[in-house]
């Protein structure tokens, strides 16, 4: 019996027939996530529905020395759940229940396959919501959000996934189940919840998440601000924050995106503007009205060419409609686009955009930009045509160049999409060998044989034993100042 057949037979003893996908055509559905440039056919797909099944699969994988790739809703933009041809794909889609809503303690216990938006929907009648709202929130799962530390347009004020979860149940490679945190704040001992969040499925498989619920503010109002230059728009964003206002949302888009959006779904964006800033303020009526006045004053001082404040909920939603449709709108002006995800210090935005223009010209491509301006998270959309010879390679090269630019401006490679397979070869741009070795040693602490989602995040794979021996210290000998006889 081949090893694959043996594996399938033993998985068959753990899982019911419908939870085990062996057939090649059916496996094809799992060959990539939302980062579609890279694909691989998984060895076998498992869709467990109980924690015991997950533990048994992880124990079997350890015993048979088989790799495992966990997968949520498959919306990763960095290939975080791209399968391995010699690995089990562990789909968590059947973990789709909200287990408990505890209004008194303002939290909910949910299974990892629950959609992000489904949590807010389940509690909205009581006036609550779950704050992180990535653009993919109608599809992405909370387990995937934990793996990637997902953000969204509201994270300047309300934080990322890591700031909004209280507890995690995690199955480690080998099958051990650990409980971290709960309904209380700050887990005991090392903050392993914080470490797990954003670990891209390399450390453990999340089987339950306790999320914080927030009270929805009674009022929210939006402002549309148009500017004659990107620099003026960026200055306005800084001025708002400098004045002590932390908006619930603070977004910016460039001219290319404004025009794409208006063609896709007209929502009254000013076509003469080089940059558009969308501001959302929330809170009590008195506070929001006061802050709308403050922001209008700042916009005037910064020379805004368009200033509109929403006077109804419908108008506020209209302001957002264009931003929310920015990606599909851009896909109508080019056959293909590649969505990048760098972060820069906000004040460097004009430089970043000018640099990006130059880099795009070098490749003969163009870039449309949407920008979570409040927290410096930039999403350049590289427009290309996959049917054109060499365009895919040029787009990829441009993407790498843009991310290097972000790092050189004091930023980072990824703000919210994760490193995955997409950016792993760029990790050396940000980190030294010593930095990376320390991160990989943590991986070893959770998964010494490197069976869980290998090939993601880190450019090179080291055996854990090698990492234990490494004694690099900025290229220096160990103990350089010790006397040696």
């Amino acid at each position, binding site marked *: 019996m081949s090893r694959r057949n043996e594996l399938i037979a033993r998985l068959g003893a753990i899982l019911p027939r419908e939870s085990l996908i062996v057939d090649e055509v059916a496996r094809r559905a799992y060959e990539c996530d939302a980062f579609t440039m890279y694909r691989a056919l998984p060895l076998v797909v498992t869709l467990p529905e109980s924690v015991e099944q997950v533990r048994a699969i992880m124990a079997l994988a350890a015993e048979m020395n088989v790799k495992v790739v966990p997968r949520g809703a498959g919306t990763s933009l960095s290939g975080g759940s791209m399968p391995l041809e010699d690995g089990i794909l562990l789909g968590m889609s059947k973990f789709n229940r909200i287990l408990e809503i*505890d*209004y*008194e*303690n303002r939290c909910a216990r949910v299974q990892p396959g629950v959609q992000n938006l489904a949590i807010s929907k389940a509690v909205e009648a009581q006036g609550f919501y779950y704050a992180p709202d990535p653009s993919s929130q109608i599809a992405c799962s909370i387990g995937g959000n934990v793996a990637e530390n997902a953000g969204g347009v509201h*994270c300047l004020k309300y*934080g990322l996934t*890591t700031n909004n979860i209280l507890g995690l149940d995690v199955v480690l490679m080998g099958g*051990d189940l*650990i*409980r971290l945190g709960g*309904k209380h*704040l*700050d887990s*005991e*001992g090392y*903050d392993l*919840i*914080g*470490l797990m*969040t*954003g670990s891209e499925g390399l450390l453990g498989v999340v089987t339950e998440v306790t999320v914080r619920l927030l*009270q929805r*503010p*009674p009022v929210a109002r939006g402002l549309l601000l148009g500017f004659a230059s990107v620099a003026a728009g960026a200055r306005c964003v*800084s001025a708002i*924050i*400098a004045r*002590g*206002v932390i908006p619930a949302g603070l977004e910016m888009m460039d001219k290319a995106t404004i025009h794409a959006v208006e063609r896709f779904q007209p929502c009254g964006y000013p076509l003469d503007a080089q940059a558009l800033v969308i501001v959302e303020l929330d*809170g*009590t009526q*008195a*506070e929001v009205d*006061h802050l709308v006045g403050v922001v209008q004053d700042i916009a005037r001082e910064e020379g805004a060419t368009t200033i509109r404040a929403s006077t109804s909920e419908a108008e506020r939603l209209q302001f957002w409609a264009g931003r929310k449709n920015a990606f599909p709108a851009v896909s109508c002006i080019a056959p293909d686009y590649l969505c990048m995800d760098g972060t*820069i210090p906000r*004040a460097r935005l004009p430089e970043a955009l000018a640099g990006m223009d130059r880099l795009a010209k070098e490749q003969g491509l163009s870039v449309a930009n949407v920008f*979570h301006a409040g*927290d*410096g*998270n930039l999403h350049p959309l590289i427009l290309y045509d996959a049917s054109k010879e060499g365009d895919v390679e040029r787009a990829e090269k441009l993407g790498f160049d843009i991310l290097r630019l972000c790092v050189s401006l*004091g*930023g980072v*490679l*990824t703000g*919210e999409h994760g*490193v995955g397979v997409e950016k792993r070869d760029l990790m050396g741009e*940000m*980190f*030294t060998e*010593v*930095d990376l070795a*320390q*991160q990989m*040693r*943590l*991986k070893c*602490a959770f998964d010494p044989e490197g069976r869980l989602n290998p090939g993601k995040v880190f450019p090179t794979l080291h055996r854990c034993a090698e990492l234990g021996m490494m004694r690099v*210290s*900025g290229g220096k000998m160990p103990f350089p100042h*010790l006397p040696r006889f």
Partner: protein
Amino acid sequence: MQSACATLEIRDEADAVDAICAAKAKGDCCAIVGGGSKSGLGRYAPQAQALSTVALTGVTLYEPNELVLSARAGVPLSEIEALLDQHGQQLAFEPMDYGLLFRAEAGGATIGGAIAVNAAGPRRIKAGAARDHLLGFRCVTGRGEQVKSGGRVMKNVTGYDLSKLVCGSYGTLALLTELTLKVLPKPQTECTLLAIGAHEAESLALLRRATATPCEPSALAMLPAGAAPLALNANAAAIRLEGPAISVTARRDDLVGRLARGGLRFETLDEYDSKTLWRGLRDAAPVAAKVGQVWRMSVAPSEGFAVVERIRRAGAPMLAHFYDWAGGLIWLCLETAPDAYAAVVRSAVDASGGHATLIRASEEVRATVDVFHPQPAALTALTRRVKNSFDPAHILERGRMRAEF
């Protein structure tokens, strides 16, 4: 420093590398000391020498418009807070000052120490703890290696989020050298609404009701009758509202309307009195002044009262207690005992879920009683592997968190 031992001043990362490598060669272990305000915190485990970070001085970056500040680890917290204050900003996690608990006076803490213990204050429920504000750091690990993680931008998922891990690691993983923090605007003003006269459990229920309103309280505490610094003759629920003046007043009025009922009296503390109150509660003033052992417990807010009742019913002699975080944080002072009533306290907490830390007790007691909440075997094993990944020879703060490492 937990007892008299040689202190080595660390002036830069190279010094830290040398000191840690030298200790490793000798098999010695090292304490890491900033201002010394938290030297009584953690298990009592004498170290061969102390590495002092006070010479790691200087704010290295502060861009108010970018909401970011970097400082070396030995910078006094008070210096950072004063600098931020000049620009109308603050560390929103409201780091607690342990000085009041340990030496009857506040002050002396460094930013490195605040991060190392994952400091938090009353605003924890709204703005988070130190872990939620550390964007990046530089350190020297127990391997003697210079490592950095994170960055200076708000959103960053490039590699593992080691910032979370070092917050609350009590120096057991690495000697922090430089921290980069998210800073936030100070609210324009604040006031505190006191709801006086309800039973303890009712007062706590009232706090939870306040959290389920759109009034956005930034802190919610419950002080039993007589508790410092208010020393009222009845129980009080204290609710802090912060923001623009126009909004604070509107929300206070709204809150009174929502919470009012028979037998309850409302009072409002103005900005000055409100600040004084929360500074006291942040630093555990109601239990700090009592002579006894002090416990800090984190539980689900709705369980706070039940946990205290279990401890009371088990006969542990309670001297003072109060609740913060809408009931989720309990500070308790018990009469001194060799076992610090650890079994009573921990079983009371375990019945609800959460953890209890023995904050103040003598060296003898902290050498024998688990200071941090015991963990299940699989988690202890994982914790040890995480420790080993940074510090395989257990050079840094050996025994400070767990007896075994």
